[in-house]
């Protein structure tokens, strides 16, 4: 009888439960933009007064994004710091951005003569504009850029080495 009472008391103690505790979980998947350029340098072999001076290689800009609903559009721009001297020999002889052309994805060649958010006035070109909707908050876009320098407006450009920097800018707004 005594043993039965002891076991009963022990069994009662076993069913006591502790208070429930919680663990807060917080997981964040940040929005992001990735731009991949297939090359970072392009050479040109120039012919005097020729309208066709293609770049040595095309540059493929692959843009990958994962965005939230608060982004309405994703744009890609190309621009120079100055429209007067897209490429320069450093001694005052310049190739202006109006004579530098980009063909995007096989389209027509366009000179960099637009004013885009960054860079010099009349020294840019919008490459692409993607409207972000519910079905493409995650996506990829490829822009294949071919380059050309038109030297028809510059028949007296002196021989020399001309260099410049083209900036590719992504904009999410």
């Amino acid at each position, binding site marked *: 009888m005594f043993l039965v009472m002891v076991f009963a008391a022990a069994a009662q103690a076993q069913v006591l439960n502790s208070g429930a505790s919680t663990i807060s979980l917080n997981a964040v998947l*940040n*929005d*992001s*933009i*990735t*731009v*991949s*350029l*297939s*090359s*970072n*340098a*392009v*050479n*040109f072999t120039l012919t005097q007064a020729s309208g066709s001076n293609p*770049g*040595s290689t095309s*540059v493929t800009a*692959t843009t*990958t*994004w994962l*965005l*939230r609903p*608060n*982004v*309405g*559009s994703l744009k890609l721009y190309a621009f120079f710091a100055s429209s007067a001297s897209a*490429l320069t020999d450093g001694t005052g002889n310049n190739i202006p951005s109006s004579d530098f052309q980009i063909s995007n994805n096989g389209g027509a060649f366009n000179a960099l003569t637009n004013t885009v*958010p*960054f860079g010099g006035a009349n020294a840019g070109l919008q490459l692409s504009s993607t409207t972000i909707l519910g079905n493409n908050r995650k996506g990829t876009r490829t822009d294949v850029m071919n*380059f050309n320098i038109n030297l028809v407006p510059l028949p007296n450009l002196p021989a020399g*080495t*001309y*260099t*410049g*920097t*083209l*900036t*590719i*800018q*992504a*904009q*999410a*707004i």
Partner: protein
Amino acid sequence: MKTSFLRTARRPLASALWVFVLGTAVSAQTVRPVINELIGDPVKGRVEYVNDSLTPLNVVLEAKSFTVSETGEVSYRLLDSDIHIKLSTTSFRIQPQQTYYVFYEATAPHTPAWFVIYANFTGFAFRTAQGMNVRLQLPHTVYLLPKHSLRSLNSTSSAPISMRPRTR
């Protein structure tokens, strides 16, 4: 013997060629998050830059104010004088296949306020002595939101919306 040598040499040669191709062809840079909506005074935020290429890159940060027109066109300007930003760094170098975090604090006398931090990636491995180099800019936009945002925006009355739960 000759065949065996070629077979042995083929693998490291292929690896070296693959590394060369990757190093010259792949040059991906990432910014995350793209947009940060922060509440507080000052607000504290963090932005992450990833260099997926096989070469180290230099990054220079530049903060700008901007305005969006009714047609959606964005115009940038120098940072408004009443917005104060403390960046943990304004220029840095990201090693290959690495991530770099930049921390910042921002204050503005009136909210909402906003600005963008553009990261200029330069120093790509293959630079040309003649012709054109290409560089990249990626944005990180920060919105400073008011602490009490639940107000009637369209009402002429400025009374705040009560969010107090009902009591029985």
